[in-house]
C-alpha cells in the first residue's frame, strides 16, 4: 500500500455531555489517498461528524491516531479546510470576496497581491463574480455554500473536510451543487473527505465510500463508487450498490463485505 494522505488508525472518540460519557466512534480505521473523493456514510448519530471534527483537530481521540502526511493531528490547521452544513460558517461582516480572502490573509500562505488575484479567480470559478461585494445575508443558501467552498479552495489545503455541506439545501440546489463539486474536482483534482447520511449522495459524490454502523460508529464496509455519478442514477449498478449499502446499514450483515466484525 502506498503511503496515504490521511491515516486514521484505531480511533475511538468520546465526548462528555453534562450527564454521560458518550462513545461516538469506536476503533475506526481507514485511509484517504491523494485525489480521493472519500465519503463517510452512516445513519444519523453514528458519530461521523464527530469523526470529521477529530480529523479537523477540534478534538483528540481517546485512543488511536490520526495522521496527515504522517504527522499526528493535534490542533486545527489550514491544511485541513472544513466546510460545514451551517450557513453561519461565513463571516456576516465580510463580503463574498473578503470571506474568500480572509483565510489567505490570516495564514499568510500567499503574498497579498497573489491572494487578491486568487480570491477573484476562485470567486469567478464558483460563478459569484456578480456577487463579489455582496454580504452573505443577501445570498441564497446555494450561493453561501459556494462561498464556503471557494474560501476553502482558495487556500489549497491538503484535504477538504466537508460535513454534510449540502444537507440544508433544497433538492434542486443540492443536485446542482453536487455536480459543481464534481466538476471542480475534475478541474482541480483535490482530495476531499465528505460526510453524508444520504446513500444517493454518497454514491454520486464518492470514489470510495466508508460505511459506518449506528451508534457507536464502527466500520461496516469500504466500497468503490468511482464510476457512478448523476448520469448513472437510473443504471442497474447504481441500484445494486444502493441496496447493498442499505442492507449493510439496516439489514442483516453481509458477510462478504464486512471488513471487520465490531468488537462490541
Amino acid at each position, binding site marked *: 500500500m502506498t503511503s496515504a494522505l490521511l491515516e486514521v488508525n484505531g480511533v475511538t472518540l468520546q465526548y462528555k455531555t453534562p450527564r454521560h460519557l458518550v462513545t461516538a466512534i469506536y476503533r475506526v480505521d481507514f485511509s484517504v489517498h491523494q485525489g480521493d473523493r472519500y465519503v463517510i456514510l452512516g445513519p444519523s448519530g453514528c458519530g461521523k461528524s464527530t469523526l470529521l*471534527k477529530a480529523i*479537523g483537530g*477540534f478534538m483528540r481521540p481517546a485512543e488511536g491516531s490520526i495522521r496527515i502526511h504522517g504527522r499526528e493531528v493535534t490542533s*486545527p*490547521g*489550514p491544511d*485541513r*479546510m*472544513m466546510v*460545514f452544513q*451551517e450557513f*453561519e*460558517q461565513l*463571516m*456576516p*461582516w465580510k463580503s463574498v470576496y473578503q470571506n474568500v480572502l*480572509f*483565510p489567505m490573509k*490570516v*495564514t499568510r500562505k500567499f503574498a497579498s497581491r497573489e491572494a487578491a488575484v486568487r480570491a477573484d479567480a476562485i470567486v469567478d470559478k464558483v460563478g459569484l463574480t456578480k456577487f463579489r461585494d455582496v*454580504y*452573505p*445575508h*443577501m445570498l441564497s443558501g446555494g450561493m453561501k455554500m459556494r462561498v464556503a467552498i471557494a474560501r476553502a479552495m482558495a*487556500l489549497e489545503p491538503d484535504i477538504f473536510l466537508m460535513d454534510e455541506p449540502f444537507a440544508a439545501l433544497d433538492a434542486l440546489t443540492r443536485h446542482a451543487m453536487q455536480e459543481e463539486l464534481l466538476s471542480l474536482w475534475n478541474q482541480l483534482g483535490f482530495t476531499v473527505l465528505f460526510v453524508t447520511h444520504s446513500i444517493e449522495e454518497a454514491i454520486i459524490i464518492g470514489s470510495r465510500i466508508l460505511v459506518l454502523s449506528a451508534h457507536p460508529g464502527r466500520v461496516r464496509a469500504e466500497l468503490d463508487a468511482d464510476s457512478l455519478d448523476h448520469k448513472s442514477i437510473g443504471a442497474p449498478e447504481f441500484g445494486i450498490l444502493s441496496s447493498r449499502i442499505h442492507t449493510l446499514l439496516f439489514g442483516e450483515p453481509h458477510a462478504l463485505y464486512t471488513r471487520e466484525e465490531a468488537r462490541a
Partner: protein
Amino acid sequence: MNAHPSKEPARVSRPEFEVPLADATAAGDVERPLTVAERIINNEAVQRLTILVALIVLWELYARWLNNGLLFPTFSETMRTFAKDIANGVLIDRTVTSLRTLTIGYALGVALAAVFTTFAVASGVGSRVLSTLTAMFNPLPAIALLPLALIWFGLGTPSLVFVIIHSVLWAVALNTLIGFRGVPETLRMSGRNVGLKGARYVGLILIPAAFPSILAGLKIGWAFAWRTLVAAELVFGVSARSGGIGWYIFEARNDLDTATVFSGLLTVILIGLIVESVIFRAIEVRTVNLWGMQ
C-alpha cells in the same frame, strides 16, 4: 356513473393540457416607481418631524393658555433663552464641561468592561466572577453610589467619573459577554480552522461576530452614563466650581428661571438625540445593518 364501494372519493379522469402563456400586459407595469408624494409620506424622517412639530404646537398653545411663565414657559420663550445662552457661551461651556467628564468616564468604563470580559472569556472562573459581579451591580443605580464616591474622592470630577464608570461598565460587560456566548459554534470553528488563536481570534472572530450585542451594550451604557451624569451634577452642583449641564439647570431653578431650566432640559434631550440618532445610527448603518445582523 358507477357506484364506488370503497371510502375513496370518486375521481373523474381529467385530460392533461398545455397552453401558451396568457398575455399579461393588461396588468400594467409589473413594477412601477412610487410617486414623489407617496415617497414623502412613506419617509420615516418626515413622519417623525411631523410628530415633533405637532408636539411643539401643542406645547406653545398650552403654555399660552396657561399664561404662567414660572410654571410652564412657552416654546418660543424657551427657544429665546436657549438661543441667548448659546450666543453668550454659557450653555456651550456647561455642555462641554459635561461632555468632557462623560467622555472620560465612558472611555474608562468601556476599557474596564473590555478587561473584565477578556478575563471572563479566558476562563470559566472569570466568566462566573463577571456574571456574579454583573448580577450584583447592574441593578444598583449609579446615583446611589454618589454619597460613597463623595466620601472617597471628594467633590469634583473624580466622583462623577466614578459613578459614570459604574453605570457604563456592567451594561457593556454583560452585553459583550452575552454576545460572545452567542457566537455560532461553526463560526468559531471556521476561525480556529485557519489557525486563529488568542487575541487574534478574539479580535478577528469574536468581537465582529458579537458586534450587534456589543453595540447594544454601548448604547445602553451611553444612555445610563448621560442620565447618571446629569443627575449627579444636580446633586452636588451646589459646591462645584465649574459646573456642567446639570449645574446649569440647578442654578436656574434656584433663580426660579423656569425658561432656563427648560432650555437646559432641551439641551440634555438634544444631545441624547444627536448621540443616539446620529452617532450610533451611523455606526449601525455601516455595520450591523450592512451585514444583516440585526
